[in-house]
């Protein structure tokens, strides 16, 4: 290692940043935060940040699914009997609704990237509608289970009685997993409503679609969780 000359106090290439800011301004974007050098850096940081957050969510849901899996391994018969109390068709409908909402969200992101705000609003509204449908159906399912005495709190009863303990654990996990999932969906709907308000008022620029993109990542993740939850909870042993 050669002896080091005094460190060079040259400034960073600011001319690019100035053009950057001017270009951004020309597009009606005033969104470059003060601590970033350019929009590309800001976008990269946002993307990494959202993926890091999704990694934590993978472990959050994954921990619950790991616990579920241990019990499923141990009490398979009880879990099978309990799972068959669920209506697989309603579950499939809900899954299809959520997959469709994922598509509409992806299209909303794409529209934002193209600077097409009316389309963004349209697809966001569609996604919200599908999400609310899912949540509504979920409430119906919950009510159904509670009416049949399958809610693990309160008056739980299950036939045959030797499977009742395992079935109670199954329904504990059913409500816990789908409840946490539904909470995440509600947060997603909230984010989408916020995006919708921006989209309707001032619109998104194609140079600044980040909020839509990041919400899209979050929503797709919520969809992926359900892709795994559906077979785990509804299709344990249907054959």
């Amino acid at each position, binding site marked *: 290692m050669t002896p080091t000359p005094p460190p060079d106090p040259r400034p960073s290439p600011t001319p690019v940043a100035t053009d*950057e800011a001017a270009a*951004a301004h*020309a*597009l*009606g974007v005033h969104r470059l935060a003060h601590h970033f050098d*350019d*929009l*590309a850096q800001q976008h*990269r940081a946002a*993307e*990494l940040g959202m*993926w890091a957050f*999704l*990694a*934590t*969510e*993978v*472990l959050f849901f*994954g921990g619950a699914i*790991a616990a579920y*899996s*241990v019990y499923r*391994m*141990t*009490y398979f018969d*009880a879990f099978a009997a309990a799972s068959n109390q669920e209506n*697989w068709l309603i579950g*499939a409908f809900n899954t*299809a609704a959520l*997959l469709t909402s*994922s*598509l509409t969200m*992806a299209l909303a992101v*794409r529209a934002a*990237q*193209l*600077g*097409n*705000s009316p389309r963004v609003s349209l697809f966001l509204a569609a996604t919200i509608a599908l999400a609310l449908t899912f949540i509504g159906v979920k409430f119906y399912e919950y009510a159904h289970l509670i009416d049949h005495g399958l809610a693990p709190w309160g008056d739980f009863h299950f036939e045959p*009685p*030797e*499977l*009742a*303990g395992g079935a*109670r654990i199954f329904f504990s996990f059913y409500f816990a997993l789908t409840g946490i999932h539904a909470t995440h969906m509600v947060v997603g709907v909230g984010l989408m409503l916020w995006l919708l308000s921006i989209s309707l008022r001032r*619109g998104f620029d*194609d*140079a600044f679609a980040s909020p839509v*993109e990041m919400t*899209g*990542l979050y929503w*797709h993740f919520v969809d*992926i969780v359900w*892709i*795994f939850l*559906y*077979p785990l909870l509804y*299709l344990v042993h*249907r*054959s």
Partner: protein
Amino acid sequence: MNPHDHPHAPPHDRPPDARREPLARLDRADLGLPHPAPLSAYLGVYAALLILLVVTVAAAFVHLGPITIVVAMAIAAIKAVLVALVFMHVHGSSPLTKLFSIAGLAWLVILFALTFSDYISRGWLPISRGWTDRPILPPPPGVPRPPRDQPQAPPQQPQEPAP
């Protein structure tokens, strides 16, 4: 007239036609931002997801025995990968983004593997009856088997506590 000559022209006045798309992509590329994927990609993945949903349900009604869960999770994994690659734009993203996208999964594998290593091997010890009176998987050859004094009783399922 190029709308960019008017810096304050509201973007939503621009009609969404194909002539605008190349311009939009150029601008985003100029700013270093990723460009949108074609519409066909999204629709194709959506169709695949719905088909796989049908396959998931159909496979559940076929008697596959112990590999049911493996098949179900494999199909779910394929769906998840499709959503991640196309909807979440992992395809075509930077290597760092790809690394971040699988990091959570890698750590989840650690959680599953070591936790399951406990539960699977609990019944193997001759000194411990394991958690549910019988091992979940039989011990590998060479591991001493739990003592069997009498014919094995049916596994005790947990009882409801008396009210």
